[in-house]
């Protein structure tokens, strides 16, 4: 594999051609905040949290491949500002009320807000009244907590192979759907495996019977599963 030389935060490093900026940063122990990315799933650059500066241009590090001589900055005042604003917009778009959420204290969105020092949300909240589908015997999808990261869509298609989830509509009308937008409990292709529950970073897809702060998830199980399959 051809090695490519890039400069990341001033440090010269070489990595195999075809690597993404995020992969190289991880190998170098440089932290970049992510939300829709999960090791083992394909990258789609949906959440825009992993943005970095490449020669003054802002790009998503999870979907940008390295190129010879690339100059990458992973942290700056400008990046911090953009990431925080982006995070505030994600919070404002749906109803992320942590204290009432089954995923409180075990939520990747909440963790990011803490990590990035988000004290409050400056943009007005949209407060949409969205649906909650509890038709599945074991799980619930609450659209009010969904950030449209698309992890459920990818894990279902790429790891489970069931292809139940999708995203329908556009802009603020976009929603995750099961099959043609039918009730989850009626989705014939669903195998009830629960991988979508484990990878969902917020309290949007959860197990039934959990009270506030009781829903713990293990997205790393999917990463491990994918690694084992590849090593077989």
């Amino acid at each position, binding site marked *: 594999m051809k090695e490519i030389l890039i400069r990341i935060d001033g440090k010269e490093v070489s990595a195999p051609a075809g690597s993404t900026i995020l992969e190289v940063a991880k190998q170098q122990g440089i932290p970049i905040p992510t939300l829709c990315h999960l090791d083992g799933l394909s990258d789609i650059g949906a959440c825009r949290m992993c943005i970095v500066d490449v020669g003054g241009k802002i790009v998503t590090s999870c979907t940008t491949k390295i190129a010879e001589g690339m100059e990458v900055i992973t942290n700056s005042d400008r990046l911090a500002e953009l990431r925080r604003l982006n995070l505030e917009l994600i919070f404002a778009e749906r109803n992320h009320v942590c204290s009432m959420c089954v995923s409180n204290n075990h939520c990747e969105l909440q963790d990011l807000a803490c990590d990035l020092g988000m004290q409050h949300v400056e943009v007005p909240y949209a407060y949409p009244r969205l649906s909650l589908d509890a038709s599945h015997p074991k799980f619930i999808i609450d659209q009010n907590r969904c950030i449209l990261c698309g992890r459920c869509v990818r894990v279902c298609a790429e790891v489970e192979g069931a292809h139940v989830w*999708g995203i*329908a509509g*556009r802009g603020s009308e976009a929603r995750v*759907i099961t099959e*043609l*937008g039918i009730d989850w409990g009626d989705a014939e292709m669903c195998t009830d495996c629960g991988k979508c529950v484990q990878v969902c970073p917020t309290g949007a897809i959860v197990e039934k019977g959990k009270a506030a702060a009781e829903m713990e998830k293990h997205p790393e199980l999917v990463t491990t599963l994918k690694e084992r399959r590849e090593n077989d």
Partner: protein
Amino acid sequence: MNEVLKKYPSATREDLLDILHDIQESDPHHFLSDEVLTDVASHLGMDLADIKGTASFYSMFSFSPRGKHVIRICDSPPCQLLGATTVLQKLIEVLGVAVGETTSDGLFTLETSSCLGMCGVAPAMMIDNETYGNLTPSRIVEIIERIRREDETS
């Protein structure tokens, strides 16, 4: 299987939008039913959620039955400046329906549309694939009455 799909024997996912337009056009109620979408999914070997996700991205596709004629009145700024709101009010009055609704005789569905590219003859609308520009409330009455007459005689 839907008749339209026979015209696309070796179709791939790249043909999806053409197929959906074709089906919607040929449907008497100008919409895409769940049955049709399921047929298209199995014909193209695509997931149901993928088909619905793609189709629902485009405002020109409808998932509920519509009237025989679909009216799309432009609501972008150039048309607004030249009286689109008055024209729309006239349409609502003449048809007796709100935007997004179908007349009780099933003849018309009233919709708004983003720019139709006819700013030079604003305010503008489309009825099915026919374009109408320089609209005034009195022309609206004329146009709707003419279509109603034509429909009675046909």
